[in-house]
């Protein structure tokens, strides 16, 4: 699993290196008073990253080949054994929930950032806090709703007051 992960990482990094190497062509050439080109340092770093990513790619390939069939069979059987263990009712509910929470939270934060200039800090933050807590805490009991609304209702204005009036930092 980790060898595949490493190979994906190395491939993505090599792709990034290629894009930035092409883009480094747009960096202006050195002028008469400059001793060195502005592109030297980033290109040097891109070279280092490229070499390290290639080494990681090769390492992951060698590691996957080195894995003997005996080990693979053992890992497979261990996996099968683990999979056959019946999850508890708690695990049934917890597994899929935690699977989608992280990407959902990223999407929510993206929407929050996008809505900040449109709705303003207070409304956008209240909405973000309520939705994010509903996502993470759940909405199945009135107590959870109460905790959610009280936390959001107190903290969003409190942060606003501290920054706006205490620290003289203007918020959108």
């Amino acid at each position, binding site marked *: 699993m*980790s060898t595949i*992960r*490493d190979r*994906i*990482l190395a491939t993505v*990094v090599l792709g990034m290196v290629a894009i*930035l190497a092409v*883009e*480094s062509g747009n*960096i*202006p050439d050195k*002028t008469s008073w*400059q*001793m*060195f080109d*502005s592109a030297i*340092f*980033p290109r040097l*770093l*891109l070279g*280092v*990253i490229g070499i*390290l*990513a290639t*080494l*990681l790619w090769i*390492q992951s390939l060698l590691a996957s080949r080195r894995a003997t069939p005996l080990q693979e069979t053992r890992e497979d059987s261990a996996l099968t054994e683990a999979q056959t263990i019946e999850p508890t009712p*708690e*695990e049934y509910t917890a*597994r899929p929930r*935690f699977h989608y*929470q*992280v990407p959902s*939270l*990223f999407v929510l*934060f*993206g929407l*929050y*950032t996008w809505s*900040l*200039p449109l709705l303003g*800090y207070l409304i956008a*933050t209240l909405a*973000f*806090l309520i939705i*994010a*807590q509903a996502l*993470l*805490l759940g909405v199945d009991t009135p107590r959870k709703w109460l*905790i959610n609304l009280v*936390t959001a209702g107190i*903290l*969003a204005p409190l*942060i606003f007051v501290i*920054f706006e009036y205490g*620290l003289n*930092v*203007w*918020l*959108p």
Partner: protein
Amino acid sequence: MSEFFLQGLAEVSNLYTLAMITLGVIFGIIGGSIPGFTVTMAILVVFPFTFSMDPVDGIALMIGVFVGGYSGGIISGVMLGIPGTPSSITTVYDGYPMAQQGEPGRALGIGMLSSFFGTLISVLMLIFLGPLIAQFSMNFRPWEITGLIVFALTLVASMSSGAMLKGLMAAAIGLLITTFGYDRNSNLRFDFGLPALESGFEILPVMIGAFAFSQLMNNLEQLSSRGRSTDTPSKQAPAQGSVSIPYRRILKDIAGQKINTLRSSIIGGLVGALPGTGGSVANFLSYDQARKFSRHPQRFGTGITDGIVASESSNNAVLGGAFIPTLALGIPGDLPMAIMMGVLILHGITPGPLMFEQNPVLIGGIYVSLMVAAFAMVLVQLLLIRWFAQISRVPQQILVPVVLVLCAVGSFALNNNLFDVWVLFLFGIVGYLLWKAGVPLTPMILGVVLGKNLENQFFRALELDPSWTTFFTRPLSAAFLALALASVVFSLIQNQRIARASKASRTPPS
């Protein structure tokens, strides 16, 4: 030396600064006591509040968070059996059993006093060693500084357990991030035609995004399994109302631990001064040494004073030690110090040997703030320990959205610019994905902090002498580069040994 101290004392001795230190300590303890929140996160959350303060007050607040954060880990460790921060793991070994034996107040009290002495001893180390190292490093020219930065980065990267290649790659990516925008010759690099990218990425949103998002999402992912494992200790944890501090008993306990306190604090201070180590390494090392020197090593882990003292005095001593390379050389050794250096840079102060000449008041202010924070930490913990024990139970489901909002507001407040919030979001995704891919983030963040300086020093050296060989002919520069290479080779050998050992343990006996 005494001048620094007196000037600092005059600067810090006002109600506002003292209040800032105390507030920082309170917030640090809260941050340290919430499992999974960590000292680093507490520092990142508090950082934006320092924007409108003058440097001394801002640094004083941050130091309060540091001192409180390193000591706060003991609360959840003793009360719940879960270390609040990685640097208080070994505290749980003896703190939790002692609490289970009906003496949570004694365990907490011993931890508080040990943290206090650990901080004070490490500040003394900083006061004596800091100026000496700074004096020595005044002779450093661009070649030596380049070598030193390369050494610090490779050391931190190669200490990323079992992931040296990824660690080095992360450090190089961190350096690359600093090349976006205008360079020192006012040439534009990697702007992709976007005006917002012309000034490059601010350090703060990159650091917060990469670290905070990965940490918070990791907390969420681990919540289900950790929740299950913590159920048992939580239920067994002593009742909150029963926490009373037996002062006489604690003073007697501590009086019998002078050598242990001194030894553990020195270990903590020295470990803190080394790049890439930090509180958790100091914690294990001093606990191990305390056990080796003990007359009753078999009692470690059963709830004895020695274990708590070794653990807590060493993790707090890391603080003073970690300030030594940051202030004297301008090289932060770990993540919290990298953020501290970011704070100093944003307040217009460049850490390094010149800081002792140019900003003696600030240096003195740091010494005094560390000492005041140590006193404030003991007082605050004694007065509010019951409340902190309750706060350490705040669920991550509430904490995560609130911290994300604070991160966004902090990034925005930096320049009153929404682009910085988008940078935070972008590096949040990047940091999370890198963390999922097993890439250590500390080298990347150190790369971001040191990138500009490395490029400047590297080209300044080449402008003074265009020959690349000068890096290898100047003794100190060559020594740093040799040490950088040695750290990589040592890590390679170590990884091979680990691989061989694990292969041997997997091979079935014939």
